[in-house]
């Protein structure tokens, strides 16, 4: 029903955003590609000679490379699992009639507004510190040995910190979706004799599928390049146990000041992210009307 004139206007309206993003994507990508094939170490300037695939070989043979990929998937995956499961649970809870519902919602939503660096600092120092942290005190109260969270279970600790920050987001989206669920359907099922669990599994969950997809998509986008929390808490350690791909690239760029290697790493990260994106888009495409 769009006339030709409308179509042209639409294209015009769309163009600023598209052009901006094209430029934003193309220029850094082009520069990164160029640097990835040249020798550029900030602290040892040597005239930016062309070195072919040397930077890629160096980055890909880094002893921490494979581990960083694994860590990336573990972090993203576990945060997704916790936030989706927790989000569904919290959404179900918030959907019930409650006293003081407004305040409860406000409290639960708050972690999303906290700056990731601040959140990580607070968790690291005031909760997870093995001597002065609250968890250590709790361990003492229960008579168990205090856990040195960031040194012994760095990935778990990071997952906890990051999931805490994203839980509200997932909860809100799932809650909105839940509240749009037709109660008549549920009541009909109840009258047919379906128990609460069966109702949940066969009616509620399928309805939530779209919202869950959205949550997974958006969170994955942000979690793939997770950096600030790692920088503030473990610095990728102990060793490289909590180094993800983004942190590995950072260590090339800002610890070794090796622009060539960092650029090669950036290109590798882009390729991997795009592969992941293709899978995600199939998932999204199935569940969303776009």
């Amino acid at each position, binding site marked *: 029903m769009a006339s030709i004139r409308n179509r042209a206007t639409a294209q015009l309206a769309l163009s600023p955003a598209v052009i901006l993003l094209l430029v934003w994507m193309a220029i850094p990508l082009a*520069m990164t590609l160029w640097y990835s094939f040249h020798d550029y170490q900030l602290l040892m300037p040597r005239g930016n000679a062309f070195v072919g695939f040397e930077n890629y070989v160096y980055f890909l043979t880094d002893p921490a490379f494979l581990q960083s990929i694994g860590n990336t998937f573990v972090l993203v995956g576990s945060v997704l699992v916790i936030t989706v499961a927790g989000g569904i649970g919290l959404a179900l809870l918030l959907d*019930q009639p409650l*006293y003081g519902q407004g305040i409860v919602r406000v409290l639960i939503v708050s972690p999303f*507004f906290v*700056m990731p660096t601040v959140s990580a600092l607070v968790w690291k120092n005031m909760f997870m510190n093995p001597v002065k942290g609250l968890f250590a005190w709790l361990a003492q109260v229960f008579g168990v040995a205090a856990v040195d969270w960031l040194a012994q279970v760095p990935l778990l600790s990071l997952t906890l910190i990051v999931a805490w920050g994203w839980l509200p987001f997932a909860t809100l989206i799932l809650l909105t979706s839940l509240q749009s669920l037709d109660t008549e359907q549920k009541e009909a099922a109840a009258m047919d004799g379906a128990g609460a669990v069966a109702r949940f599994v066969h009616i509620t969950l399928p309805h939530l599928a*779209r919202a869950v997809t959205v949550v997974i998509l958006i969170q994955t986008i942000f979690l793939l390049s997770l950096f600030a929390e790692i920088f503030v808490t473990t610095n990728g350690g102990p060793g490289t146990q909590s180094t993800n791909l983004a942190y590995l690239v950072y260590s090339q760029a800002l610890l070794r000041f090796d622009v060539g290697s960092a650029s090669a790493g950036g290109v590798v990260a882009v390729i991997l992210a795009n592969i992941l994106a293709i899978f995600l888009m199939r998932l999204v495409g199935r569940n969303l009307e776009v």
Partner: protein
Amino acid sequence: MTNAMHGRHKLAFTVLAWIVAVLVFFPILWTVLTSFKTEGAAVAIPPKFLFFDWTTENYAEVWQRTDYLRHFGNSVLISLGSCLIGLCAAIPAAWAMAFSPTRHTRFVLLWMLSTKMLPAVGVLVPIYLLFKRSGLLDSRTGLVLVLMLSNLPIMVWMLFTYFKEIPRDILEAARMDGATPGRELLHILAPMALPGIASTLLLNVILAWNESFWTLNLTAADTALLTAFIAAFLAPEGLFYAKLSAASTLAIAPIVVLGWLSQRQLVRGLTFGAVK
């Protein structure tokens, strides 16, 4: 179910909900409480919850040591600025895709989202050098540009899904009445889209405010934001928990309060097409 059973259920859920809410909110609460303790009390074991000597010395010291207002001002300017400018490009784009979809629309949308999947660390040095050559280092313009481009995909998508839910009939009627696309946009679409635009603005202001990678690496002194403000307290010497708490509270308070005040509005736009 009888009324009594309803009441019991409500009570039970209320208790459960409050316990969960307090647990989730606890880290923030603890930070605010600790910011009023002395350093010694801050690390006391067993921890002091409410009964300690309340003091504002930490806030005084943090205030004196750093220029909080300048950091705060920069955060406001850059977050708000980047989002408002972004909306100028995002609204037309979302309108175009929602009301004149082509077979490329889905691809364009997904492509926009995919631009967010590249790790910023990989392009830091190229962008840094680019900014240096253009004189954009440590400038508000440069940061606004970068943050705007980072959030543009999310803005477009949020608006797109919101616009799609606006009933076509009203627009069709207006068109048949002879409204040009401009009038259509301003007088009919805008009022209906306002809640969606508002919540898009809110969400992205929050995302921009909390963004730490670009704001830490592309700024020096002039444009230091609150993320840099807190970076001064990352690992100082000696006992610092109370001061860290004070600095943290100062850093997150504005956005947390904004979030509280606007959370209903925020939620209205947070459907992302997930809700039919």
